């Protein structure tokens, strides 16, 4: 079920009414309702993937209890290892087995050996990358003694399958969500209104900004050999905004829906387009994933290689980012995307600016100072290049795309075909609107957080205007880019 569709609207209204009015704000009953809602939501697209989620949840629930009850470290480690192997194993099977098979077949072919390997017909369970990461952090942190085990199965299962976040994150840690699930939730007017506002902002980013850009970028990418270098460059730049608006728009909706139900979930984006270097960018982009990887991949490697100085840090960060790339899917382009970002950290590590928190210095008019603006532009260019690798279907296509950009046609005026030129101009206007509001509210949780605005009339005018844009310019409900990861 996609958030910006009619069935979801009916679904959320039904949940909302039952949750607050029928169940009388009784926590246990609310959780049972949420759990049923989670499975209904998850099974809506394809009910056959539901048993895997339920079985996995039961397994980790019992592993958690076993880890907690074991007195010896050795036993704790055994149960944790089972959890890690099962999680990584199911990801490997469902996401990567065909990739390994075709890569091996190609490798053998390149050295002159004929193989008879066949790929499997595997359905990728939706959200598997997201819920597996939740479960892995659960067993690892229990083993590290970071928190106590959850004995309440309904609360645990609701955490794993929490419907606003199961398909595309944010990836909440157990200690963010489980304590909220076991405490009383009464209707909080301010939080709910904040949630609605954030959903509106998410709808605008997804349906107005991202989906209109998608019309243009899809055309450019599908026929890139027909267009001028300048058009391809514009397509690459537009894709950065599309990707951001699509994914952060989804996160805003997910966080907003959770707020209506009385939950505060993890923040996932902090205005990454205003980042001043690549480390800063990753501290602001898909935060729940990067902080997960920091805790469970980068830190253990960094601890292990700590006596190697900078070399150890570099190896740890590059490994971390290659895995981060591959997390997005089974394709060499994603591995290259990760490697590229990992390598971009090297100058920052060597110069010691890696760990330093950046701050945007402003002029009197509230604009960034020229030096900081320059850093933002450089970071944006680096990110754009990375997303060309990310968007390409293969490494060859990526190289081809770059070659086309670097041709003499880079000097022509960028142009697509027919009516899409109008969509392109509208898209640019929408991007400017989004960036302006986000810049003005960059200290707030999200771009439309204008509750402190003095004039109620101005505030409501902005909401109404965004509604009208969503209604008239919102493309049909299309899937979210991050669903396929």
């Amino acid at each position, binding site marked *: 079920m996609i958030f910006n569709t009619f069935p979801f609207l009916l679904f959320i209204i039904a949940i909302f009414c039952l949750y607050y009015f029928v169940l009388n704000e009784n926590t246990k009953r609310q959780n049972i309702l949420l759990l049923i809602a989670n499975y209904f939501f998850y099974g809506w697209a394809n009910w056959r993937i539901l048993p895997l989620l339920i079985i996995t949840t039961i397994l980790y629930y019992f592993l958690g209890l076993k880890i907690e009850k074991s007195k010896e470290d050795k036993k704790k480690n055994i149960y944790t290892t089972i959890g890690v192997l099962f999680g990584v194993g199911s990801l490997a099977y469902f996401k990567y087995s065909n990739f390994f098979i075709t890569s091996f077949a190609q490798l053998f072919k390149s050295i002159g050996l004929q193989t008879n390997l066949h790929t499997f017909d595997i359905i990728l369970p939706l959200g598997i990358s997201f819920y597996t990461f939740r479960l892995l952090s659960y067993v690892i942190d229990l083993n*590290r003694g970071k928190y106590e085990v959850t004995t309440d199965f309904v609360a645990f299962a609701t955490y794993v399958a929490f419907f606003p976040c199961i398909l595309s994150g944010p990836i909440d840690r157990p200690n963010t969500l489980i304590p909220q699930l076991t405490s009383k939730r009464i209707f909080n007017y301010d939080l709910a209104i904040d949630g609605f506002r954030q959903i509106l902002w998410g709808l605008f980013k997804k349906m107005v900004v991202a989906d209109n850009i998608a019309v243009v970028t899809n055309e450019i990418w599908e026929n890139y050999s027909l267009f001028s270098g300048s058009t391809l460059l514009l397509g690459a730049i537009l894709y950065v905004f599309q990707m951001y608006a699509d994914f952060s728009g989804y996160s805003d909706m997910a966080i907003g829906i959770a707020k209506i139900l009385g939950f505060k979930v993890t923040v996932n984006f902090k205005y990454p387009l205003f980042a001043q270097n690549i480390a800063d960018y990753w501290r602001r982009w898909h935060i729940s994933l990067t902080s997960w990887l920091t805790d469970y991949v980068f830190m253990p490697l960094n*601890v292990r290689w*700590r006596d190697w100085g900078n070399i150890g840090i570099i190896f740890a960060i590059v490994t971390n980012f290659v895995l981060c790339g591959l997390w997005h899917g089974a394709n060499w382009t994603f591995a290259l995307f990760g490697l590229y970002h990992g390598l971009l950290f090297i100058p920052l590590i060597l110069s010691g600016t890696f760990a*330093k928190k950046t701050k945007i210095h402003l002029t009197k008019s509230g604009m960034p100072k020229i030096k900081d603006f320059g850093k933002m532009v450089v970071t944006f260019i680096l990110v754009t290049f990375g997303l060309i690798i990310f968007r390409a279907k293969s490494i060859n296509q990526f190289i081809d795309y770059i070659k086309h950009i670097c041709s003499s046609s880079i000097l022509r005026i960028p142009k697509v075909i027919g009516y899409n030129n109008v969509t392109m101009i509208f898209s640019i206007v929408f991007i400017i609107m989004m960036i302006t509001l986000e810049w003005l509210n960059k200290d707030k949780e999200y771009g439309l957080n204008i509750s402190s605005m003095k004039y109620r009339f101005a505030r409501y005018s902005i909401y109404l205007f965004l509604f009208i844009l969503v209604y008239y310019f919102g493309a049909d409900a299309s899937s979210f880019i991050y669903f396929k990861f």
Partner: protein
Amino acid sequence: MDREKIIAKVQEIFKDILDEEEIELKDNTTANDVDNWDSLTHILLVVAIEKAFKIKFTSKEILSWKNVGEMIDSIQAK
């Protein structure tokens, strides 16, 4: 070495590595309470502490500390 002395010595290491003069460590201090103490500087701190006390922590110890108190416990236990 008694606990007070260990904390004082660790505090000096923190000041030196994090380049911050005003750090006061207590048992319940966490990374959130100290500027510049993040995943990267954490490793620099660990390496410096290991050198200063001539000890070696296990990976699990380092990854399990919830606050300064638990870190001091590990040093004391060596």
